[in-house]
């Protein structure tokens, strides 16, 4: 058996907040300047470490939202968990110019590479859309032509991350389709009543299994379990379904 190539050591780096954008009332995107960042693949994540004045430390993992461009920022979108200890600091307290510690990129499985020739089906639940957004952005940046479909399930229209940017990708990047599924409240005038994603949602708005798409599913465990089970039931090859779950405990 051939020995797989192993990446080098991941060191902690100082990251400076250069800009922040409120995505929704409870989610904030952080643009971080990280000197000598080695670059990353869409879908990878970073570890963030915070140290309190008395030396107390906490670490959490966050998906990277940005596609990598030379000299660019590392962008994280943080969903505030009200009982969390790290996310409320990042969404409510951290100011432009402040530094945090970060290391990565981490993960070589839940990633999309431009060299993958197949169509791509992205299924995101809530803040699970973040690593999928990195893939959408990478495709746009590379002007890649693999057909992409994103099924993005959110509670209400006010919970949509990247609300202004997603329609721009639909407009500017041929071959990218977006379907927004609302679970609690649909927008005014929407023909679809709110519901959780089901077989019909994925059958109607996904790719048929005959297209053999690479599928990426990310979100809370119940969303991922449901979506991945439906994909398998529809006939998608389990080996082409990659999943990433948010425990919801950070």
């Amino acid at each position: 058996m051939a020995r797989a190539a192993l990446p080098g050591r991941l060191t902690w780096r100082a990251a400076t907040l250069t800009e922040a954008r409120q995505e929704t009332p409870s989610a904030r995107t952080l643009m971080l300047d990280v000197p000598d960042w080695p670059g990353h693949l869409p879908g990878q994540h970073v570890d963030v470490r915070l140290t309190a004045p008395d030396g107390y430390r906490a670490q959490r993992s966050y998906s990277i939202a940005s596609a990598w461009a030379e000299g660019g920022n590392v962008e994280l979108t943080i969903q505030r968990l009200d009982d969390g200890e790290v996310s409320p600091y990042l969404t409510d307290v951290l100011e432009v110019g402040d530094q945090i510690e970060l290391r990565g990129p981490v993960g070589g499985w839940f990633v999309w590479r431009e060299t993958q020739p197949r169509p791509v089906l992205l299924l995101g639940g809530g803040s699970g859309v973040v690593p999928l957004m990195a893939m959408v952005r990478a495709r746009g940046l590379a002007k890649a032509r693999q057909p992409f479909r994103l099924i993005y399930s959110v509670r209400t229209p006010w919970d949509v991350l990247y609300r202004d940017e997603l329609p721009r990708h639909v407009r500017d990047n041929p071959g990218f389709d977006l379907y927004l599924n609302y679970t609690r409240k649909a927008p005014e005038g929407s023909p679809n009543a709110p519901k959780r994603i089901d077989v019909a949602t994925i059958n109607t708005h996904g790719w048929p299994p005959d297209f053999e798409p690479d599928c990426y599913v990310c979100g809370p465990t119940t969303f991922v379990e449901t979506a991945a089970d439906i994909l398998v039931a529809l006939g998608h090859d389990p080996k082409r379904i990659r999943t990433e779950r948010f425990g919801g405990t950070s």
Partner: protein
Amino acid sequence: MGIISRGFGGRRRESVPGLPPGQYLTHDFPVLSAGPTPRIPLDRWSFTVTAETGERKSWNWQEFTALPHEDVTVDIHCVTKWSKLGTTWRSVSIDTLLEDVETAADYTMVHSFGGYTTNVPLEDLLDGKAWIAYKFDGEDLEPEHGGPARMLIPHLYFWKSAKWVNGLEMMAEDEPGFWEAAGYHMYGDPWLEQRYQGD
């Protein structure tokens, strides 16, 4: 590195003895896996030990659950930072499974339904340090938590406790498994915080 976050730390979690560095306590049981959850019917379940000579020893579900079992209570530590203390499992000790297996190998590869693999040194599986678990908290192990049966190696990060196990292969040399080839540590000691390659 001397980066201090003023205003951070006011909402810190209770300090708990028994937590490795960088971990926090959870009372939930989060799920982590790379793909869809496989559902393995018990009549198609089997577990096979393969020695480096190619010699094999297999158990079907009935034979496996008829082996002497142990009820163990252990702390588990996931590389994604959560730890869960005092989890209880019904399981078969790896010592029991390897009783009649002759091997000079130093390493093993754990294999799972669905193709997942993870590498573990053989000595980390012996002398009461590792089990194959098939009940959690008195209930049959649910598929999303690795049922019908999963590895249980509590002294290493929990990705080493592979779900849906179906085999153990003896290896003369260490080889990376699935997550290890994707950048995670070859050994994964939570007390040394060996999360990623090079840690």
